[in-house]
C-alpha cells in the first residue's frame, strides 16, 4: 500500500519534462522550481569540458614524471656508459691506506653504494624512532587528551611541519649533535656496543644516528597528523562495539581504532618515509658527509640527496657531474622501489582480513 503512493507521486511531477509531447509540456501550471530546472538544459558541454580538464590533470602527472626521468637519464649517460650497472656496487681497496674507496672524484672513481646505504639507513632509523612516537601521539590526541589540550597539541605538532629543514639542520648541529656526542653515544657504546650497531670512536657526534633522529622529528608531524585523521574517521560505533564486549581502554584502541585505521596509517608511514628518503638539507648538515659504509650508526656517512647538494656546485669534471645526476636517478628509483615494497607490505597485511570499511 505504501508502494503505490511512492510510485504515483513522482510520475505526476515528471509530466512536463522535455522528452514528453509538446502539448503536455505546455501545461500552464509549471512550478517555479520545475521551470528553473527545465531551463537548465542538460549541461553536456560544461560536463565534457570539466571531464577533459580532469583527464588532462591526470595525464599531466605522466608527462612530468616522464620528463624528469628522461632528463636524468640523458644527463647521466656519461657515467652510465662508463660504469654500467657496476655504478651501484663497485669499490676498490686503496693500496696505501687499505681502506675501501667507493667515491673519489679526484681519481675518477664513482659508486652510488655508500649513498644508497646512507639514505636507507637514516630513513629507516627515522621510521623506527618516529612511528611509535607518532602513533602514540595520535592515540593520545584522539582518545585520551582532554578537549582543551587537544587543539594546542595538534597545532604544535603541525607547526613542526612548517619549520624549514635548514633550521632543523642548525638545531641538529648546535643542540642535537653535542647532546649525542656528550651523553647519548657514550651510553649507547657502553650498553649496546655488543650489537655492533653502536661502536667506533667518532668524536664529532655526527653520523647516521644524528641524521636518523633529525629525520624522525621532521617526519613526525606528517605521520602523526595523518594517523590522527584516519583514527578520527573511525566511527564511534566501532569503539562502542568493542567497549560493549568488556574491553579496557587499551583493548578498545587496539581492536576498535588501530585495526580499522591500519591501512590509512600505513599510507601515513609511506608518506613519511618518502619525505625522509628525499630530505636533503638537514641530513647534509648532520650526517658527516663521508662516502663510507659502516655498520655502526655512530659513524659518519652520506646520503644520496646530501652528496648531490654538497658536490653539485663543485663538480668540475663532466664525469663527476654525470655521476651525481645518476645518483639523482638512483634516488628516484630507490624511492619508487621502497614505495612499491611498502604497498606490497600493506597489501600483505590487509589481505589476511577481508575488505576494509566503506
Amino acid at each position, binding site marked *: 500500500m505504501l508502494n503505490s503512493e511512492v510510485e504515483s507521486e513522482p510520475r505526476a511531477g515528471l509530466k512536463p519534462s522535455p522528452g514528453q509531447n509538446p502539448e503536455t509540456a505546455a501545461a500552464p501550471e509549471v512550478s517555479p522550481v520545475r521551470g528553473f530546472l527545465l531551463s537548465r538544459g542538460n549541461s553536456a558541454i560544461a560536463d565534457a569540458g570539466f571531464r577533459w580538464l580532469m583527464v588532462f590533470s591526470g595525464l599531466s602527472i605522466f608527462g612530468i614524471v616522464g620528463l624528469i626521468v628522461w632528463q636524468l637519464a640523458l644527463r647521466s649517460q656519461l657515467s652510465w656508459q662508463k660504469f654500467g650497472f657496476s655504478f651501484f656496487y663497485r669499490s676498490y681497496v686503496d693500496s696505501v691506506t687499505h681502506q675501501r674507496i667507493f667515491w673519489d672524484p679526484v681519481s675518477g672513481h664513482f659508486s652510488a653504494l655508500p649513498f644508497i646505504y646512507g639514505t636507507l639507513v637514516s630513513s629507516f632509523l627515522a621510521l623506527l624512532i618516529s612511528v611509535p612516537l607518532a602513533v602514540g601521539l595520535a592515540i593520545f590526541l584522539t582518545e585520551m587528551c582532554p*578537549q582543551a589540550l587537544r587543539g594546542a597539541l595538534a597545532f604544535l605538532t603541525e607547526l613542526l611541519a612548517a619549520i624549514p629543514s635548514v633550521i632543523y639542520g642548525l638545531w641538529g648541529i648546535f643542540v642535537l649533535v653535542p647532546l649525542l656526542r656528550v651523553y647519548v653515544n657514550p651510553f649507547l657504546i657502553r650498553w649496546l656496543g655488543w650489537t655492533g650497531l653502536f661502536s667506533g670512536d667518532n668524536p664529532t657526534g655526527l653520523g647516521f644516528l644524528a641524521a636518523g633522529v633529525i629525520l624522525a622529528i621532521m617526519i613526525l608531524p606528517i605521520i602523526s597528523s595523518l594517523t590522527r585523521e584516519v583514527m578520527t574517521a573511525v*566511527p564511534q*560505533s*566501532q*569503539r*562502542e*562495539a*568493542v*567497549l*560493549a*564486549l*568488556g*574491553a*579496557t581502554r587499551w*583493548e578498545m584502541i587496539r*581492536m*576498535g581504532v588501530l*585495526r*580499522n585505521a*591500519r591501512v590509512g596509517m600505513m599510507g601515513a608511514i609511506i608518506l613519511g618515509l618518502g619525505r625522509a628518503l628525499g630530505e636533503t638539507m638537514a641530513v647534509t648538515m648532520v650526517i658527516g658527509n663521508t662516502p663510507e659504509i659502516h655498520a655502526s650508526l655512530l659513524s659518519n656517512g652520506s646520503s644520496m640527496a646530501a652528496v648531490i647538494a654538497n658536490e653539485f656546485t663543485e663538480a668540475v669534471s663532466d664525469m663527476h657531474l654525470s655521476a651525481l645526476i645518476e645518483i639523482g636517478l638512483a634516488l628516484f628509483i630507490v624511492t619508487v622501489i621502497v614505495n612499491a615494497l611498502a604497498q606490497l607490505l600493506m597489501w600483505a597485511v*590487509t589481505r589476511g*582480513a*577481508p*575488505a*576494509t*570499511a*566503506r
Partner: protein
Amino acid sequence: MGVGIEVINLNAWYGNNHTLQDINLHIPANHATALIGPSGCGKSTFVRCLNRMHETNPIGRVTGTVRIGGLDIYQDANPVEIRRRVGMVFQRPNPFPTMSIYDNVAAGLKLNGYSNRRSLDEIVERSLRRSALWDEVKDDLKKKSGASLSGGQQQRLCIARALAVDPEVLLMDEPASALDPVSTSKIEDLVFQLKSQYTIVIVTHNMQQAARVAEKTGFFLNGRMVEFDSTHKIFTNPSDKRTEDYITGRFG
C-alpha cells in the same frame, strides 16, 4: 543464569539535555522486558545506562542507582567488569569491518584471552545458529568480512557476537528494525529461548513484537517512564491515558 536489574532514581543528561528523568523500575531476572515509546524519548539512552555505555559519551552524565544482581554498577564495579556481564546489541549494526565473520563472533572471547581453538569453533557456530545467521554464512566464515554482509545479516552477526560471551543480561536496542519478517521472527524465537537463561531488555517500535516476546513492558515518553507493568496489562488495560493513546496509535 540471568540476574534482575533494579533502577532507582536514574537521571541522564546529554550536555544540558535532561534526557532521562527519575526512572524507577525493577526488571525481573530470566524474563524479557520490552521498552516502547516514541522516537527520541530516551529508550536507547536508558539501555545505555544499564551497561555504563552512556558515560563513554563525552557529554553524557548519569546519576542514580542501578543494581544488577545486587551489584551497584555505578558504585561498586568498574565499567569493564559490568560490560563483560551485560551484553549489548546496538540500534545500528556495528560489525568489525576488518575482521572475518568468525573473528567478529569470537572477538569478545579473544579480547579476554580465551584461546581454546576447538571450543571457540563450537561457540562461534552455536552463537551464529542462535542468531539465525549460520546457514547463510557457514561456507565463508573466515573468508568474508563482517562488512560484506547485508544490513540485516550484520545485525544478526552483532547478536551472535553479543551471545558468544555468554552474558547474564542482554540489552537489545531495536535488534530487528533492519530485518525482514523471517529473520525478525527468528530473532523473536531466539529471545523466547534465551529468556529462560538470560535477562533480556529489548527496545522495540513494534508493538506486536513487544506483546509476543516480553512479560513486562515499559512505556517511555519524553524521558520519563510513564508506565511499567506486565505486558498483558499494558496492552489490554493500561492505567495511564498516554500509554493507551500510544499503543492505540493516537500519537507517537
